[in-house]
C-alpha cells in the first residue's frame, strides 16, 4: 500500500514537472504578441489563444472565401482584423510592417518554419481599411441608426 | 518487308556529349530567364496590358501544335496502315512528347503565378477552353507514352491500332482546342472565327512534320544510317501537301474576314499597312513558310537533294514562327474596336494604349525563355534515342519496301 502511494506521488510529481515544463515552453514559444500592439492589452484573441495558435489560418481562409464570394467583411476572423490588432508601433507611434523581422506574424512563422504569403498582396499595416473587427467601433453609431431604421420598418 | 531493327543512336561520344552540353546550356539559360522574369515581374518583358501574350506564347503555341503534328507520322503508319511509315513511328511518338513538354514548360513559366500551378491542376472551370486544354495536354502525353509502349513491346502490338487511333483522335482534339483558345475570343477582331481550329490542325501537320524530318535527317546522318530516295520522296511530298493546305486555309481565313465590311480594318492592318506585322505575314508566313518550301519541294532537281529538302523544312519552321507571331501578337497589337464609326482621340493616360496600334518589342529574357523550351524539346529526344531503341537501323528503300527499288525513285 505504502509503495503504491509512493509510486503515485512520484508519478504525480513527474507529471506536474513535465506539465510545468511544457507550459513554460509554450509561453516562451507563443509569446510573440508585441507590447506596443493593441492585442497586448486584451485578455485573449477573438478565440481562445491556444485555438488561435493552431487554427488561425483555417479561420482566415474560411473568412477569405466568405469575403470574396459572399461580401461578408464584418466578422472577427478577417485578416485585416489580425493586422489591425497585432501590428506593432515604433517610438513615434507609426505602425511597423507586421511581416517584418521580429514582428508578430513573422516571428512565429519563422519559429515554426511555415511559409506565409498573405502579404504578397495584403497590406502589412492598417491603412485604408474598409471594415473589420477593430474599426467597427467607428461604425457603431451607423449600426445603431440602421437598427433604429429597421425597427421603424 | 524485312524485319525492322531498331538501334540506339551510335554517334561518337564526343559529338554526343557536346550536343547534350549545348542543349543543356540552352535549357539552363531559359530557366534563368524565367527566374529573372519571375523575380522582377513581367515589366521586364515587352508585354503590357495591351499585348498580354508575348514571345513565350509564340514559342509555346508553336511547340505544342508541332508536338501534335509530330505524332502524325506514327498515325499514318498505324491508323492508315501505310507500312512504309511504321519504322518512323517510335521517333514520332518521342518527338511529340518532347515538343509538348517543351511548349508547356514555356507556357507555365510565363504565368504570373507559376507557383500556383497546383491551383490550375486542381481547380477547373469547364466553360474555359484553357481548362479543357490542361486535360488535353496531359492526356496527350500519357496516351503517347502508352502508344510508344505498344510500338516497342511485343505484348502491346495488338493494342497498337486501337491506341494509335485513339491518340490520333486525341491529337485532333488537342490542336483544335489550341486553335480555339484564339477562335473563341469574341472581343478581338482577328479572332472570333471557327476556322482557327482546323487551321491550327493543318499548321500542326506541316510544322510537326518539318521538325520531325530535320531531327530524322540529323540523327541518321550523324551515325551513318541510310534514308532511301523513296522514303525521302514520301516525306517531302507529304510536307508539300501540308504546306499547300496551310496556304489554302490562310486564304479562306482572310477571305472570310475580308467579306464583312466590319473586318476590313483589321485585314488592312495584317495585309497592307501593319508595317512589321504585314511584313511578317507576307515575307514570313507566306513566302518563307509557304511559297519557297513549295518551290523546293516541287522543283524537279532540287527536290532530289537532301540539303535542299532540309532547307525547305527549316523554312517551314521559320514561317511557322512568323505565322504564330502574326496570329498571336499582331492580333493583339491591333486595337479592339469598341466604338464603330468613331476615332479614339484619347484613351487614358498618354502611354495607355487604346484605339491605336499597341507597341510591343520582345525583351531578351522572354525570347530566351522560348528558346529554352525549344532546347528542352530537343534535349529529351537526344537522350531518348541514345539510351533506348527509337531509331530504325535503316530507312533504305530495300529495307522498307522491296518493291520500291523497281520503281523510279522520283
Amino acid at each position: 500500500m505504502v509503495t503504491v502511494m509512493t509510486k503515485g506521488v512520484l508519478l504525480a510529481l513527474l507529471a506536474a514537472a513535465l506539465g510545468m515544463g511544457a507550459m513554460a515552453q509554450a509561453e516562451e514559444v507563443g509569446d510573440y504578441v508585441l507590447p506596443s500592439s493593441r492585442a497586448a492589452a486584451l485578455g485573449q484573441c477573438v478565440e481562445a489563444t491556444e485555438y488561435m495558435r493552431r487554427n488561425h489560418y483555417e479561420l482566415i481562409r474560411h473568412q477569405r472565401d466568405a469575403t470574396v464570394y459572399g461580401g461578408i467583411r464584418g466578422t472577427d476572423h478577417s485578416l485585416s482584423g489580425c493586422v489591425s490588432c497585432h501590428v506593432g508601433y515604433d517610438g513615434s507611434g507609426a505602425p511597423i510592417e507586421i511581416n517584418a523581422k521580429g514582428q508578430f506574424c513573422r516571428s512565429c512563422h519563422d519559429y515554426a518554419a511555415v511559409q506565409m504569403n498573405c502579404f504578397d498582396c495584403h497590406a502589412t499595416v492598417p491603412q485604408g481599411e474598409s471594415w473589420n473587427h477593430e474599426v467597427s467601433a467607428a461604425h457603431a453609431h451607423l449600426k445603431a441608426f440602421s437598427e433604429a431604421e429597421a425597427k421603424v420598418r | 518487308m524485312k524485319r525492322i531493327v531498331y538501334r540506339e543512336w551510335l554517334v561518337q561520344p564526343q559529338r554526343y556529349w557536346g550536343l547534350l552540353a549545348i542543349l543543356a546550356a540552352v535549357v539552363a539559360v531559359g530557366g534563368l530567364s524565367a527566374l529573372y522574369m519571375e523575380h522582377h515581374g513581367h515589366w521586364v518583358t515587352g508585354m503590357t496590358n495591351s499585348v498580354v501574350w508575348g514571345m513565350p506564347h509564340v514559342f509555346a503555341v508553336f511547340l505544342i501544335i508541332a508536338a501534335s503534328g509530330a505524332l502524325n507520322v506514327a498515325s499514318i503508319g498505324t491508323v492508315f496502315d501505310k507500312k512504309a511509315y511504321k519504322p518512323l513511328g517510335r521517333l514520332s511518338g518521342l518527338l511529340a512528347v518532347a515538343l509538348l513538354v517543351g511548349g508547356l514548360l514555356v507556357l507555365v513559366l510565363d504565368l504570373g503565378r507559376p507557383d500556383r500551378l497546383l491551383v490550375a491542376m486542381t481547380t477547373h472551370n469547364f466553360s474555359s477552353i484553357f481548362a479543357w486544354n490542361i486535360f488535353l495536354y496531359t492526356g496527350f502525353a500519357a496516351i503517347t507514352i502508352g502508344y510508344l509502349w505498344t510500338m516497342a513491346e511485343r505484348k502491346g502490338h495488338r493494342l497498337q491500332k486501337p491506341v494509335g487511333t485513339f491518340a490520333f483522335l486525341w491529337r485532333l482534339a488537342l490542336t483544335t482546342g489550341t486553335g480555339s483558345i484564339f477562335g473563341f475570343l469574341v472581343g478581338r477582331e482577328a479572332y472570333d472565327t471557327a476556322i482557327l481550329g482546323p487551321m491550327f490542325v493543318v499548321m500542326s501537320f506541316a510544322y510537326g512534320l518539318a521538325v520531325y524530318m530535320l531531327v530524322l535527317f540529323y540523327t541518321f546522318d550523324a551515325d551513318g544510317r541510310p534514308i532511301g530516295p523513296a522514303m525521302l520522296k514520301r516525306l517531302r511530298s507529304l510536307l508539300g501537301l501540308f504546306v499547300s493546305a496551310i496556304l489554302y486555309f490562310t486564304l479562306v481565313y482572310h477571305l472570310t474576314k475580308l467579306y464583312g465590311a466590319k473586318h476590313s480594318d483589321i485585314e488592312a492592318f495584317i495585309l497592307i499597312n501593319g508595317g512589321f506585322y504585314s511584313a511578317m505575314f507576307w515575307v514570313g508566313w507566306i513566302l518563307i513558310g509557304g511559297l519557297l518550301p513549295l518551290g523546293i519541294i516541287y522543283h524537279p532537281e532540287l527536290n532530289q537533294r537532301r540539303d535542299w529538302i532540309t532547307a525547305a523544312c527549316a523554312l517551314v519552321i521559320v514561317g511557322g514562327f512568323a505565322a504564330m507571331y502574326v496570329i498571336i501578337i499582331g492580333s493583339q497589337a491591333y486595337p479592339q474596336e469598341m466604338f464603330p464609326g468613331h476615332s479614339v482621340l484619347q484613351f487614358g493616360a498618354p502611354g495607355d494604349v487604346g484605339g491605336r496600334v499597341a507597341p510591343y518589342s520582345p525583351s531578351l529574357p522572354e525570347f530566351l525563355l522560348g528558346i529554352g523550351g525549344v532546347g528542352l524539346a530537343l534535349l529529351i529526344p537526344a537522350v531518348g534515342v541514345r539510351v533506348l531503341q527509337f531509331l530504325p537501323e535503316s530507312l533504305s528503300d530495300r529495307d522498307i519496301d522491296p518493291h520500291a527499288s523497281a520503281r523510279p525513285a522520283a
Partner: protein
Amino acid sequence: MNHETESTNQGRRDFLSAAMGVSTAAIAPGVILHTPEASAAPRTDPVTDVHRWGLLVDTSKCAEGCSACVDACDRENGLNLQAAPLGDDAMKWQNQRATWIRKVKLQDNLSGQITNLPLMCQHCEHPPCVDVCPTGASFKRADGIVMVDSHTCIGCRYCMMACPYKARSFIHEQVDQKLTRAPRGKGCVESCNLCVHRLDAGDLSTACAEACSAEGHRALVFGDLKDPSGPLRQALAKQRTRQIRQDLGLNTGVRYAGI
C-alpha cells in the same frame, strides 16, 4: 463553385424577404430606403441576386479635361500607390500599371462631334472573362459584380485576351504600397469591382460616381439595376442608353447615354 451555389440558394430565400421589404416600403412610402447612411452596416449574410449593381454614364455631362473619377478611383483603390519599377520606360509603364477606369475621348468620323466618357469594367451579365478563366478565379458575384479572386488567379491573362473593353490590368511589378481594402500583388489580374468594399460595408456608392457628383457634373449614376424605384433605374428610364459592344449580347451592367 460551392460559394456560388450557396449564395444562389441564399438568394432565393432572401428574395422573398426582400420582396416583403419592398411591399412594406410601398405601404409606408415615408421610410427612407436609398440614403447610404440608412443601410450603413456591414453585411452578415452572403450577397444575393436581389440586387444587381450597375452604372449609368451620361456622356453629355462628362466634361472634357476632367479626371475626377479617375483620380478618385486611384485613391480609393490604392492605384496611386503604384510606382514605376526603376528602369522601366515611362510610356510603357503607363500601359503596364493597373488602370481600373480611364477617360476616353472619341470623335465621330463623319460629323467630327466629340464625346467624352469614362470606361471601366462593364460588369457583364455574361462576362467573357469568366467564361475563359481556367481556374474560375475570374467570377461574377451574386449581385452582378465581376471580379477576380486573387487567391486562385494564376496570372495566365486569358481574361485580358477575352475582355472586349480592355478593362483588366495585370500586375507587372512587385507592389510595396497597398491599402487594406485593396490587396494587390505581382502576377495577378484585376479590374474595377464597383468599390465592392463600400457596398459590403453598407455604403451604396462608388468613388467615381461620388467624385463626379462632387465636381457638379453628375455624369455617373450608381445604383441597383433591379430596383425599379431606385436612382439608377429612374435615371435609365429618362433617356435612351446603350451598351458598348451591344452586338456581343453581354448585357453589361454599365450603360451609356449619348454614344
